[in-house]
């Protein structure tokens, strides 16, 4: 009779132990998995950022001038054309990956490494660069300039 009475208590304790054990394993895995992911992160080749916001007032960018800014980890160039239009391009020369610059005296973009010239549409017009600079979309938003890889 006493054994019969003990049976339900024993099975309840077994169930509680099993449940606690399972919870413990779940807790352990839920701790170890993110920890492992942190210690061995996935390979990310480059920033996938598609937009960058520059803390530059649009009116502070003078006509016939250009400045280099950081787009992810890569250089890009913001240009205000002599006609007053804001434009942005990748600043990586398509010849040997040097950083290009704006030449106010020529009113276009120039690469100092091998004298490559690009017009204000980013098109390679002189020297060894084989193709145009990648063009970005520029939007003036209040006191900021937003540059995006595509519209």
């Amino acid at each position, binding site marked *: 009779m006493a054994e019969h009475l003990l049976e339900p208590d024993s099975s309840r304790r077994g169930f509680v132990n099993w449940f606690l054990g399972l919870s413990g394993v779940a807790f352990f895995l839920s701790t170890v998995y993110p920890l492992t992911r942190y210690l061995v992160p996935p390979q990310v080749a480059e920033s996938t950022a598609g937009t960058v916001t520059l803390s530059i007032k649009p009116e502070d960018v003078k006509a016939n001038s250009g400045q280099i800014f950081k787009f992810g980890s*890569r250089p890009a160039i913001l240009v205000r054309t002599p006609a007053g239009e804001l434009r942005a391009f990748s600043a990586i020369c398509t010849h040997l990956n*040097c*950083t290009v610059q704006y030449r106010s005296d020529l009113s276009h973009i120039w690469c*100092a490494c*091998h*004298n490559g010239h690009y017009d204000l549409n980013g098109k390679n017009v002189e*020297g060894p660069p084989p193709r145009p600079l990648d063009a970005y979309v520029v939007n003036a938003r209040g006191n900021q300039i937003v540059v995006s890889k595509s519209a």
Partner: protein
Amino acid sequence: MGVSASGLAGLLLLALLAWPGDASAQAPVDKCAACHLETGDERLAAPAKAFDGDIHKAKGFGCVACHGGDARADGMEAMSPAKGFVGKPSRQQIVQFCGRCHADAAFMKRYNPSLRVDQVAEYATSVHGRRLRELGDPKVATCVSCHPAHNIRPPSDPKSSVYPVQVADTCGRCHGDAKYMASYKIPTDQLAQYKTSVHWKTMTAKGDLSAPTCNDCHGNHGAVPPGINWVGNVCGQCHSLTADLFKKSVHAKAFAEMGNPGCATCHENHGIQTPGDFMLGLGDKAVCSTCHTAEDKGGKTAVEMRALIESLSAETEKAGAILLRADHAGMEVSQAQFDLNGAKDALVKARNAVHSYMVAPVKQEVEAGLAISTKVYARGVRAMEELRFRRVWLGVFLVVILGLIAGLVLKIRETDRRPVAGSPPKH
């Protein structure tokens, strides 16, 4: 087939108007093609078949525009010399034959205002033109050698024999044929060499049609081999900064005196390969060692320049590698990666400065680059130290947490086993 005198006069007038005439004056009925296709003689049918793809047909010109005759007449009457028929021009006649229209600016404007009209004049300055005029050489190229008659397409047409990618093969049909070129005693490996070059790879693998092919260095209608003294000018059309450095260097004068062809002395002419640091110095593949030794001033300069460039190259690579490791490990190093571009720029400039053949300009670029790469590397080291710090202390923290949990479990068990005061003893 009877034709009245007035009718003949009318046809003659029509033929004169049509040759080298206006497309609008062409006869609407072209019996030339119909007849040539019906003969069953492939030799006669081939021009008529090919002409469908010809730019002249697209512009409204028929056979009589070049060959004269009467496209509306039947049989041999269409090819009557009385109707201006000239048939197939001889090799000597071809240039003037095409030039009747192509050297006439007023006429060409009506079809393509931007097309040059100096091809005949240019051809006269070419080796082909001079040999034809002076020696009557029957093997030299004329207009139709490169622009196949009856299937002439504009250079912008990918099917054209003068489309940039096709130019090398077009020239190579003669210049790559050792048997055909045997009497000229010039090399015939230009095509094979060119197809190993960086220019050919750029054009075909990267699809850059602005990469140079035969005519960009030799001219097209005025094709000649570049003179020893002006090879640098030819290369300088694209590589202007390098050409400027070379012109001011000691090598410009020395090469000219030795009869060496400027840039091509070190970089070859047709088989120009991607240049590398291995070309500099006195190593196995170094081009400097062709003339210089370790004892002379030039050799010492070359070795010193190579050492400088290699030091910057190694430092830049080292900095790039540590930043990449830090980046992959999740550290924010984009600013350092951005700054490293300055060192990479300096390396490219230093490699270009080699063409001054002086240590000082190379050293100036290398020192600027080393200053950047050293700073960037230090930032990479700091990022890796920060990463190590975070990992170690995360481990310590986890050990403490797990220890705490284990302690709590033990404590709870101990508490459960301890008899509670007033409770009945367990059996």
